[in-house]
């Protein structure tokens, strides 16, 4: 592509980006045809692109290429996913859909196992260890004052973690009017935990807002850069 056509592509791209941005922003006034046009173009383009990325990065190199060009061992290796891939494709037909169930069951079984394995090794053990290690009395290179501060923070962390976990306790006994209730002491601990949850989710909400705000600033800057030469040429 030469320099001229590249500049033209960039200009057309800028125009497309400008109109799409304005069309998406029109949603602030409520759902409308401009918003719908922009999102349908976007949904289609992103699905088409994802399809091709899946082909180039997984389906061709990991399934079809070994099958066509690979040795015997490679062909044997892809035989199982090849059969299941064929069954999975039958899910597109409502009449033959049930043939695909074993392939879906495979995905569900393995997915459930990764969920359990990941939760135990990747979440529960590291989080419990982190809660305990936060109470390190002798962190390297710290003075006695800082050690106290570290332990105090560690204690808040420990109270917060345990009370938050306690908040979720589901078991209850029938109380007044037969409504199941937790014991009073557990209710107190749970309310402390609920406070920590409010703080955590409030901080996360602020993070989400800041990320959205950064995107807004970037888009407004784009609109300004696009419009300035048109309004003030030269």
């Amino acid at each position: 592509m030469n320099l001229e056509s590249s500049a033209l592509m960039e200009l057309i791209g800028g125009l497309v980006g400008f109109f799409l941005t304005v069309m998406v922003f029109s949603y602030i006034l409520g759902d409308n045809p401009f918003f719908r046009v922009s999102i349908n173009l976007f949904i289609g383009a992103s699905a088409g692109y994802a399809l091709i990325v899946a082909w180039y990065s997984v389906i061709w190199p990991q399934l079809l290429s070994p099958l066509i060009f690979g040795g015997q061992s490679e062909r044997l290796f892809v035989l199982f996913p090849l059969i299941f891939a064929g069954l999975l494709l039958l899910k597109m037909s409502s009449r033959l859909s049930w043939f695909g169930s074993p392939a879906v069951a495979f995905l569900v079984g393995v997915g459930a196992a990764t969920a359990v394995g990941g939760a135990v090794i990747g979440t529960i053990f590291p989080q419990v260890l982190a809660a305990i290690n936060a109470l390190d009395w002798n962190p390297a290179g710290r003075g006695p004052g800082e050690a106290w501060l570290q332990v105090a923070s560690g204690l808040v962390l420990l109270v917060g973690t345990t009370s938050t976990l306690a908040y979720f306790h589901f078991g209850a006994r029938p109380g007044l009017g037969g409504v199941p209730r937790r014991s009073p002491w557990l209710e107190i601990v749970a309310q402390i935990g609920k406070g920590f949850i409010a703080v955590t989710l409030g901080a996360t909400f602020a993070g989400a807002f800041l990320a959205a705000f950064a995107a807004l600033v970037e888009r407004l800057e784009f609109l300004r850069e696009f419009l300035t030469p048109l309004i003030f040429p030269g």
Partner: protein
Amino acid sequence: MKSAFSAAIAITFGLVVLAGYFIDLSLLVLLRDVFLRYTVILAAIALVVGVVNLLMVHWRKMSTAQGGSSIYSLLLVVSLILTAIIAGLLGPTNTLALWIYQYVQLPVESSVMALLTVVLVVAAARMLRRSANWFNLLFLATALVMLAGAVPLFGLNIPGLHGAGGLREWIAGVPSVAGGRGLLLGIGLGTIAVGLRVILGADRPYGR
């Protein structure tokens, strides 16, 4: 019969992969890794099925709906097929394919993210109108402190709020981490329970 066969597959492969996480036997670890590679391939095939489903839904809308909604579906179908043809024939890293990514996908993605700014402010206001209980007030107060502490206010760094040792840093490093840790532990326990129900064959989302 066919449902029992599917359940047997889910349970068997689930157990083998689960064992591969905890038992340090080279055969089990190898099998776990092989099955995980297979799931990557099958997930890509499932993506193809998903894209076909998306196309079929909109194809049907185009043929049955009248007026506006059929035009939207037409736009979706055309942009999907066009992108797939361009990126498929020229490759996903070709200039033209990247042009679509840069000038169609990215502007819409960041604009939708930017829309969230307004949506989140409206949501917070609605939440207070709906119920101004202590949980919601603490949630909002924390969010406001975190936002106020994120950047200097009118060019000023307020002592006790901004910078190292300020309120914002303390909230982010101590109570927020504590609550997050408790939430994650709870999510971990819930995940184990729901995963084990599948491996026991009690939950069968792949059909009975």
